[in-house]
């Protein structure tokens, strides 16, 4: 049995892998030979077991074989790698160090492939329930059989049954993750995009390896992305979801072929485990602003649009069924309507999967996505309504009225439940300051509870989750530590992406071998277009025909519809099987045809895409400015428009659209914030946060890119602070300009040092997490920074940049000196030289006046010089950093500086040794 399975698997898979492995014949042959060996081994094992006879042949042998495969895996890999090494005439260590792309790729492929086999193998016993008990129990049987020779104490026992379910789950998850790994979204393959017609993928690997060889330092290895293309060219055309479904189909077909029942995406699994992470992720990261701005439209689409679609599709379906010659006369109107209601709901999972990839503009994205989220309530209500009606048989006007009431209850009830749990979560997070490690858990657990509680009453769980996520986020973010927040973000993303992958794979698996039937989906298109025409009357930003079309086209169907149909009671709905087939067809049609063509269509229609470039600071300022302006004007003219319900105040707490009962902002500020947010620890205003982020990013980018040539045009180093100062003095222009080569050299030094620092920082963080989970470096840094600023007097704060008349030539001289001897920064002689120069700056006088140890002077001066250098050559990113330093006591300077040095841009100095132990 097992042997057959592996043989079949080998036969099935090898041609496929041959096509996929692009490294040539060698690997394929290796793989084939590898595959053969366990097959043989396992069949031998099998026969051996049969000889031993008795009760444990079926599954026991099967798992023995499985163990064999497992045992062979390391051997296989090593053998395979040995071959590989021979072929490339490199050593193994070389392979690792140079990060030889092909070998990594092959290894990964190999792993995926093995996993694939393991998965199939693990599924085999699923069908084998009827087979006799397995080895573990067999061992236990010895007591009952006196004639059986007493066995020695089992040194190695085998009990797969114990671990089967978690083991299989892990295998599925692993498969899903590997699939995720294997798919490189098109936006990450710039080379392939430029020239998608020519065969790429393989070509990239030599390129990458050459690049790697050029880079002598091994650190570079980390920066080169691992380009592992499962199917390199296909990923340009096909969205990930399609590929996953195909993979699922393959697995399903394989399982079917082997003769087992493929696991079906059961509704329980889907609704309780796979769906919530995705929805929570969507709700938690819901872009609040565009969502609230377009809430009206989204609701319109979600409610009216879905209703319209449901009835239209149901009606048309009924009409078609009544036609002569279709053989579907027994289909009643309610079933049709039920099907219509299920099929009319746009699926958030599918929409997210496809729309994330095509980078469409924000407005369209939020419209389609918001619709897909909110129409859940409509679908759930319609579904239950029709289900109920069709079992009762007759509909009265009261029923319709109750249905409408039910809709309101379901949607608002869901929101209420979500909001309650959200507030609870926020409230709990107030008290977690001493147990930082479990903070993230609260968010997850409360949200999941919200979902489940909503489901208890058949309220809309999706709405509850979204409400919970959206309500929780601003308060939790203000309460919990930076690290916990990162944890939440990563966990959400991780869970959602894995379950998304699993959903698509399962969709494929459960489809394996179904009959297909054509279904019309066009009416949906008409419906949406018709709707947008109506909608246009209520919008400020009108939708163009193109946008309408994309919205209509983007309405993908997915696993929710499938699960709902699957839930149907077979007694009431004789057509369940047909419905299932139909819904699968619709899903496949939308995901494959529409999902694949939507990108070319977006290009073709030249729909506005998302701005790839980051906002400039001017735009950010004016975005903020506009918000306040518009709110102000609305206040003046007394309209409570869009702007009242969104974040107006420059501080952090966002207004929630879900409680539009009174003036939220003030309410929020007065009461809610006090209850839910602990203490004074408030976040930075958006603009300031943006600025800091920009500052930080520029510092790193600048140093890493190694020169102005690579800098974005937003910040060329040609214009410096001097040029825009109200009063500008530059008498000493005679000083020679620093040559490009010199500048390059300085940058190189900076770069290497920054890289070291960053490495050090990373490993350091790892230690602190273990040692002291409460530590929160960045926050400490900010707090300290604020405190120092508060302490400072204004006069001290004025850095020489902002002093009207800076001393002549100080930056330039410093720069010249730097360029003349970039290595000698930390050395005393240079400092002695510098002192008189920098002494002219008002701020440095503080240090000069106070007697200090030479060491500290060195530190200060070196830092000063650093900043000077930056202002000149690299232009002004150190302003705030520098100003922070001035006028503080020495105790404050020390830790402060080290942080700054990590964050901004350190020069080499004596301090380097001090940190050395952290380096591996």
């Amino acid at each position, binding site marked *: 049995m097992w042997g057959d399975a592996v043989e079949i698997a080998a036969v099935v898979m090898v041609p496929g892998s041959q096509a996929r492995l692009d490294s040539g014949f060698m690997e394929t042959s290796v793989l084939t030979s590898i595959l053969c060996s366990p097959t043989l081994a396992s069949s031998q094992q099998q026969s051996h077991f049969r000889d031993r006879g008795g009760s444990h042949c079926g599954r026991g042998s099967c798992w023995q074989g499985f163990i064999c495969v497992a045992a062979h895996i390391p051997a296989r890999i090593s053998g395979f790698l040995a071959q590989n090494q021979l072929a490339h005439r490199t050593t193994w260590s070389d392979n690792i160090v140079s990060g030889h792309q092909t070998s990594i790729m092959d290894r990964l492929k190999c792993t995926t492939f093995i996993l694939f086999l393991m998965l199939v193998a693990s599924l085999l016993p699923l069908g084998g329930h009827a087979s006799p008990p397995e080895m573990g129990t067999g061992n236990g049987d010895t007591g009952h059989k006196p004639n059986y020779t007493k066995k020695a104490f089992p040194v190695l026992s085998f009990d797969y049954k114990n671990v089967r379910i978690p083991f299989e789950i892990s295998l599925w998850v692993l498969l899903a993750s590997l699939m995720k790994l294997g798919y490189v979204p098109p936006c990450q393959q710039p080379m392939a995009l430029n020239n998608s017609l020519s065969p790429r993928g393989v070509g990239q690997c030599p390129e990458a390896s050459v690049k790697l060889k050029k880079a002598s330092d091994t650190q570079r290895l980390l920066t080169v992305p691992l380009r592992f293309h499962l199917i390199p060219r296909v990923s340009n055309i096909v969205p990930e979801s399609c590929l996953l479904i195909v993979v699922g189909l393959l697995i399903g077909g394989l399982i079917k072929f082997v003769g087992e029942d493929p696991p079906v995406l059961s509704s329980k699994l889907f609704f309780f485990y796979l769906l919530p992470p995705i929805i929570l992720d969507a709700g938690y990261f819901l872009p609040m602003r565009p969502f609230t701005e377009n809430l009206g439209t989204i609701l319109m689409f979600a409610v009216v649009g879905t209703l319209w679609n449901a009835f239209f599709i149901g009606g048309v379906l009924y009409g078609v069924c009544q036609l002569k010659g279709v053989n579907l006369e027994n289909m009643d109107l309610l079933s049709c309507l039920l099907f219509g209601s299920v099929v009319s709901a746009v699926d958030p999972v599918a929409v997210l999967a496809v729309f994330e990839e095509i980078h469409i503009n924000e407005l369209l994205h939020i419209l389609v996505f918001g619709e897909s989220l909110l129409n859940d309530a409509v679908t759930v209500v319609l579904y239950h309504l029709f289900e109920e009606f069709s079992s009762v048989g007759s509909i009265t006007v009261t029923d319709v009225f109750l249905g409408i009431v039910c809709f309101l209850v379901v949607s608002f009830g869901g929101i209420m439940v979500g909001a309650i749990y959200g507030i609870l979560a926020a409230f709990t997070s107030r008290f977690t300051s001493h147990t930082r490690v479990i903070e993230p858990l609260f968010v997850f657990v409360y949200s999941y509870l919200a979902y489940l509680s909503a489901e208890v009453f058949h309220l809309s769980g999706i709405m509850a989750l979204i409400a919970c996520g959206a309500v929780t986020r601003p308060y939790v973010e203000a309460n919990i530590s930076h690290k916990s927040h990162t944890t939440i973000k990563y966990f959400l993303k991780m869970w959602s992406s894995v379950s998304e992958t699993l959903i698509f794979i399962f969709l494929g698996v459960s489809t394996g071998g179904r009959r297909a039937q054509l279904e019309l989906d066009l009416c949906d298109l008409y419906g949406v277009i018709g709707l947008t025409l109506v909608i*246009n009357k209520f919008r*400020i*930003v009108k939708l163009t025909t193109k946008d309408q079309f994309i919205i209509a086209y983007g309405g993908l169907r997915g696993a929710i519809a499938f699960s709902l149909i699957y839930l149907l009671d077979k007694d009431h709905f004789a057509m369940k099987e047909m419905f299932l087939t139909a819904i699968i067809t619709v899903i496949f049609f939308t995901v494959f045809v529409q999902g694949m063509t939507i990108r070319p269509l977006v290009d073709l229609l030249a729909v506005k895409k998302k*701005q790839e470039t980051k*906002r*400039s*600071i*001017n*735009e950010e*300022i*004016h*975005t903020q*400015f*506009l918000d*306040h*302006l*518009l*709110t*102000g*004007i609305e*206040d*003046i*003219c*007394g*309209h*409570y*428009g*869009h702007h009242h319900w969104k974040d*107006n105040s*420059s501080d952090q707490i966002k207004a929630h659209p879900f409680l539009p009962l009174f*003036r939220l*902002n*003030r309410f929020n500020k007065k009461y809610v914030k006090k209850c839910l947010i602990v203490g004074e620890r408030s976040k930075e*205003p958006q*603009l*300031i946060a943006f*600025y800091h982020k*920009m*500052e930080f990013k520029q510092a790193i980018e600048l140093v890493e890119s190694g020169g102005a040539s690579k800098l974005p*045009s*937003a*910040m*060329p180093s*040609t*214009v*410096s*602070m001097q*040029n*825009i*100062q*109200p009063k*500008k003095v530059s008498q000493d222009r005679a000083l020679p300009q620093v040559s490009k080569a010199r500048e390059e050299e300085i940058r190189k030094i900076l770069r290497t040092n920054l890289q070291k620092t960053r490495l050090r920082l990373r490993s350091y963080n790892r230690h602190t997490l273990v040692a002291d989970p409460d530590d929160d470096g960045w926050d400490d840094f900010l707090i300290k920074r*604020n405190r120092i*600023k*508060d302490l400072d007097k204004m006069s001290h704060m004025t850095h020489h*940049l*902002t002093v009207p008349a800076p001393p002549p030539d100080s930056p330039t001289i410093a720069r010249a000196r730097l360029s003349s001897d970039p290595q000698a920064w930390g050395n005393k002689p240079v400092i002695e030289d510098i002192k008189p120069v920098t002494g002219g700056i008002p701020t440095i006088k503080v240090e000069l006046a106070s007697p200090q140890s030479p060491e500290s002077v060195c530190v200060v001066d070196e830092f000063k010089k650093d900043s000077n250098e930056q202002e000149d050559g690299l232009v*002004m990113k150190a*302003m*705030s950093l520098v100003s922070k330093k001035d006028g503080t006591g020495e105790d404050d300077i020390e830790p402060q500086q080290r942080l700054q040095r990590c964050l901004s841009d350190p020069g080499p100095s004596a301090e380097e040794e001090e940190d050395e132990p952290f380096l591996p």
Partner: protein
Amino acid sequence: MGSFQSLPDDHHYRNLSKKTGFSLEQIGILHNRFKQLSLNEEILRRDDFNKVQDLKDNPIRSQIVEAFFDRRNFHKDGVGSMEEIGFEEFLTVMSYFRAPALHTTEEQREVIRRAKLRFLFNMHDTDNDGTITLEEYRHVVEELLSRSGSLGKETAKGIADTAMLEVASISVGHMAPDEFYEGITFEQFLKILKGLEIETRMNIHFLNMDTTVLCK
């Protein structure tokens, strides 16, 4: 509804409607609000804006109020600021925030865009010299961050400087150390805010429904 139909100066409204593009209904509503703010007088003073409760929380409150009294917003070459404004001026300022019509040509959009940006520019350019100087820009950012305490004040300076530097480097390019960049001209202002799509964002949804009763 009945409130504006009974108003005597229907002709006056039609004129205003032609000038500002508001519908008669909207003008009626805005007039009600105007009278509410001015305590049933025909003129509006700066003090009257203090009565708007919600405006108190607005960090750029003073700039918004100033914009209502800025002559440049009423006539092409107006200079200085007024002490009091009538309803027509009030409506004119409001008309800067009207959404563009559904079907507009590219040129019309450009005109709207320029008008809206000019309004913003005038808000920044307080001394009316045609450029936003560093001082003025700093002031803008400071006001914007005025709610975030001392932290905001210092950072505001840094932000304004960075922003100014960005404008300078985009619009002027290379500058010798002795050159001086006076400030942002209107053309440069247009250029740097190109990505902002101001014509679709600087809009207010003027209701066709009278909500003055709800306001304090």
